[in-house]
């Protein structure tokens, strides 16, 4: 599953980090970083992060990483 964060909307609430710390985190500069592709197992966490973003900045799609 592909994860995309629209930086125009991201306001660093950090709900995504709380919902899915394996997919979203704050780096040492306090900026949000995230994994572009989530595994099947991480799918539910990715969706939770998407739903929990107060700015609707996260989009999770079924697109797979091209191998």
């Amino acid at each position, binding site marked *: 599953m592909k994860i995309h964060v629209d930086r125009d909307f991201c*306001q660093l609430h950090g*709900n995504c980090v709380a919902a899915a710390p394996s997919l979203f985190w*704050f780096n040492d500069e306090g900026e949000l970083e995230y994994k572009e592709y989530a595994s099947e197992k991480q799918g539910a966490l990715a*969706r*939770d992060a998407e739903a929990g973003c107060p700015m609707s900045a996260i989009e999770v799609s079924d697109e797979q990483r091209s191998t």
Partner: protein
Amino acid sequence: MNSDRLDQIAIVGASLAGLRAAKTLRSEGYAGELLIIGEEPNAPYDRPPLTKKFLTHDLAESDIRLRVDDLKAEWLLGERANVLDTDAQTIRTSSGETVSYDSLIIATGSTARRLPEFPVSDPSVHELRTVQDALSLRESLAVQPRVAIVGSGFIGVELASACKDMGCESVTLIAPEPPLASLGKIVSTAVQRLCAMSGIHVRRNKSAHSLGTEAGMSGVFLDDGTHVIADVIIIAAGAVPSTSWLAQTKLDIDDGIRCDQDGFVKNVSNVLAVGDVASWETSGSGKPLRIEHWTNAVEQGALAARNLIHKQASRTQAARVPSIWSDHFGTRVQALGSPGISDNAKIVQGSLDTMKFVAEHYRGNSLVGVVGYDSPATVAGYRTVITKANEAAI
């Protein structure tokens, strides 16, 4: 009644928590009937913007709408659930219709607390919970009136900020408690500084007594007899969980609807409750906790839906920690846990002077909460630590 049957799920409350529950039911594989009943006639919308951009930037309702596609649900909007029969498992709506359910999720939220001395029927008195309230308030604020805000919690503080942004001639915050008291003393001090910098008058430790006119000027009398001149009076005195419709049932509605740790309502079968209206027992002390914030509505909506779909053994225990934010005066405060119950707190990063800081809140030796202004990454880093401590302390 076969309580394992799950062909008809009803959700009463069509806002954030209810919709999150609906979406999760579908994503968890529920393929049965889904009925969503909502009292407000508007298409579901997000509330946080109502105290912010919706007022200051003239947004349209469509700008704040919640996404509801692909739910395959039957919608009854503009209808109130009036009577709940948990034995027959039916709901009677305001239109006289009776609907049945195998399981019910109650997500009726809360309403603005009304003060008898400040009737909303008076044209100068406003409250703010719905988009209709916001549209009415926006219209009143357009002429840049003198504003008095009764109450200094999240809504009161955000509205004070919005009113200033809209160029209101004066803004007075009337507050029996320090502003944002639920986030502790350090935040209260920060908010008072922000108010002072913005020219907002804070009448601290005062209660609003009544509407009234003095020397020909309309406004509010305080409990000490003094008068605050105001053309527009906004009552932001807290929220009350929407449970009056459940008074004749067996539900415990002392402070919202009492549920177990998984969101199942106590004393009845096949009913769950989520969001502002729900009081879930915490996994630490077992004491009930009702959270009136956005993140909780989303989390509980999803959690309850999962708990409903999956069998007992795989239900997710909620290790939740209240997660709160407020945007005001061009900055953001974030909080985790329960800083309001702390007996001592200290700033561990930054300072009040720069308005960029993080403060740890303790109750005895337990870290029960953390707050931060303009420090999202640091606050987020406390999440696991707070969860454990918070549950033990409540």
